[in-house]
């Protein structure tokens, strides 16, 4: 089968972000960027499908500025075959992203599209679901296990009450959760090899999709700060505090 994986370049998840004082957004200048962790699990899942003999071609697509080439190269070093960067300087909304990806799906006709379940910058958790709608394919979000069966996939999903297993026919859209696998670190020879793999760059405008934002981000603010606390010396003191809290709660 042919697998398409969408990856996003985001502020590295270990960086403690700073909100710009003017409220215009989060500071990204001079901040370490990397592949969105959930996307990394999606890439790893695709590479494993390849190793199991299920996937014969893995195509990586990213949407963003030229620098997003980095994360495509990371995915190629992990074992994907070729890449596509849809280049834009604009910060696109998830609907526009999904529309661009739908065009790529139309061109590439993958049997399976893998995506991260959410991006750790906007935390939207939209794109897989939107792409499934636009391409009229079934979706399985928050995947923690993917099994290939005779007639499609069996995907274990993380839901509010535990885990659920769904059977999906192909073609389908699956979004990855963290427990899906442990992404590999590409060894140096793979990183070198990645540079010689095909990587196409095409401007977003070429796809004939309406990219205009629908929402207005009025401002971005830091969360409310918590007052500093105090240290208690004994279990007795702590128990007394809890007892007082609990009695107040009952009074409510």
């Amino acid at each position: 089968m042919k697998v398409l994986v969408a990856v996003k370049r985001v502020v590295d998840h270990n960086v403690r972000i700073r909100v710009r004082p003017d409220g215009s957004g989060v500071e990204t200048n001079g901040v370490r960027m990397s592949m969105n962790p959930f996307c990394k699990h999606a890439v790893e899942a695709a590479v494993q499908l390849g190793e199991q003999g299920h996937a014969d071609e893995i195509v990586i697509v990213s949407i963003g500025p030229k620098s997003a080439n980095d994360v495509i190269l990371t995915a190629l070093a992990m074992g994907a075959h070729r890449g596509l960067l849809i280049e834009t300087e604009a910060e696109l909304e998830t609907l526009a992203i999904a529309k661009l990806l739908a065009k790529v799906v139309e061109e590439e006709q993958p049997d399976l599209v893998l995506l991260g379940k959410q991006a750790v910058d906007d935390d939207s958790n939209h794109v897989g679901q939107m792409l499934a709608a636009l391409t009229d394919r079934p979706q399985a979000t928050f995947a923690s296990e993917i099994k290939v069966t005779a007639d499609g996939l069996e995907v274990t999903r993380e839901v509010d009450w535990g885990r659920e297993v769904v059977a999906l026919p192909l073609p389908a859209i699956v979004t990855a959760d963290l427990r899906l696998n442990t992404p590999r670190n590409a060894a140096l020879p793979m990183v070198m090899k990645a540079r010689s793999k095909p990587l196409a760059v095409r401007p977003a405008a070429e796809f004939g999709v309406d990219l205009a934002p629908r929402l207005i981000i009025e401002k971005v603010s830091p969360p409310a700060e918590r007052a500093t606390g105090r240290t208690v010396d004994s279990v007795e003191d702590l128990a007394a505090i809890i007892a007082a809290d609990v009695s107040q709660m009952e009074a409510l």
Partner: protein
Amino acid sequence: MSVLLLADHDLGLLSPSTARLVNAVSQLGPVDLLVLGEGIDQVATEASKISGVSRVLVGQGAGYGGMLPDAVVSLLETLTVRYQYVAAGATAVGRDVMPRLAAKLDLMPITDVVAILDPSRFERPIYAGNAVQTVTSNQAKHLLTLRASAFRAAPLGNDAPIEPVESAATSAARVIAGHRTESDTPDLATAQIVVGGGVSVGSAEGFQLIQQLAQRLNAAVGATRAAVDAGYAPNDWQVGQTGKIIAPDLYIAVGISGALQHLAGIQGVKKIIAINTDAEAPLSKMADVVLLGDLFKTIPELIAELDRLGVKR
């Protein structure tokens, strides 16, 4: 300005979060509550009692049992015509369904809403809660998911009419198994007290200690991702960016470092008590009250002391 809200329910019972969602969206207009599923007569009856609900619409049938998103969205698409707002909780179902519906209708959804400022302005956290966006939407319709924990519950005392909705749900997908976490503790997402454990609890048996403290306080049990990954706690106990968002009055965090992905899930907590060996752990620093000490020693002592004080909920 009318609102269609997807009710949150499980095991034939209405979830406590639904009354919170009703309260949140009733400031936008009269609320029709949609209950989908199988064997949900009792859910519909409970739903009709929530103040602020104009009507309860009920879609029964096997097709809705698994809440498969393509089936649910095709029904929502037909119903949405009549509403200006369509909303759901920011639950696994809401997250699954609302973006799919949005793309079908060519709309940008506004998800994980924690505050409704006015009919077209909303607040939502980004970057694992380290920043908050104020979003304005001038779209013809608003599709929302809301974090129930950010809102108070609407009172009971209503008797809204219950009406069936016609539809035949079909999905390309099929639910073939479910693995439910058995637990008799309160619902994590809406509990008034939560006791959370980290990877330092050391084992599934160790988590029984956390559960004991939770039972003493009629609290829900939470866990860090590290504890879940280690197999000490089931994944639906995970609190944080990729787990559940909680906002109890009291959170007792036992042996939890306070990584920013965990903090993302506890921003709405009113009071935090941390029990940790490390005074420098981020959670020790930000907690309202800290007890420095080994959890294996302090938790049994704490349970005994709460017993002695006769604390009971």
